């Protein structure tokens, strides 16, 4: 398995784990009555901003741990660094671009679902839940597409 494929698998799992833990944490606070997710849209705004910050910090930590483990497992030294972690070339860029296209399509689909949810009379907070789910799904599609293109060709 190439370095890029491993990187995408790490991205998929880290994205799922971070989102699941944060969602569980927020839901517990909602059950305790410390935040109101039904009517308080300002709370949703704050939650999204905090989630963005936590997600970035957690990913940096996960990447550092991944690089250390990868270097130990592959016996990666400074001399072999470029072979184990090759610089991004034109194929990598094309794959990223196509995966990003797929990811954007799925997020737009999620956005439309959120609008439809509002139109059919679902509660207003459902738009935020659909946003979170479509964000996670589009990230899965981004990383999944990259793995697919790396394996099957582009």
């Amino acid at each position, binding site marked *: 398995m190439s370095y890029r494929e491993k990187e995408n698998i790490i991205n998929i799992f880290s994205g799922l784990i971070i989102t699941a833990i944060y969602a569980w944490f927020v839901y517990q606070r909602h059950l305790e009555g410390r935040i109101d997710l039904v009517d308080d849209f300002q709370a949703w705004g704050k939650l999204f901003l905090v989630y963005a910050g936590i997600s970035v910090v957690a990913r940096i930590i996960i990447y550092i741990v991944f690089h250390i483990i990868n270097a130990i497992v592959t016996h990666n030294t400074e001399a072999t660094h470029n*072979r184990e972690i090759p610089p991004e070339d034109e194929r990598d860029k094309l794959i990223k671009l196509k995966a990003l296209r797929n990811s954007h399509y799925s997020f737009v689909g999620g956005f439309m679902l959120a609008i439809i949810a509002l139109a059919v009379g679902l509660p207003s907070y459902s738009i935020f839940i659909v946003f979170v789910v479509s964000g996670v799904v589009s990230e899965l599609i981004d990383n999944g597409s990259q793995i697919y293109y790396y394996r099957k060709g582009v």
Partner: protein
Amino acid sequence: MPTRNIQNNIRRLRFDADEMTQQQLADKVGVSRQTIVAIEKGNYSPSLELAFKIALVFHTPLQDVFSYEPVNVAAKKKRKS
């Protein structure tokens, strides 16, 4: 997957160039070894610039490295094999 209609002779050219490794070729043209593997397998059609760089490494014209067959001919060949 789309039918690939660009063939290449990179494997043979590497063999003729003192069994040049994929990593050596990758280093010379500035891409990863995985990209050379994908090109050799026909899973990736390189940009014109990269194609010229590869041809330059082997000191040979571009048409000796890559060849093009129309889609229907390539599909027929694939079905026969």
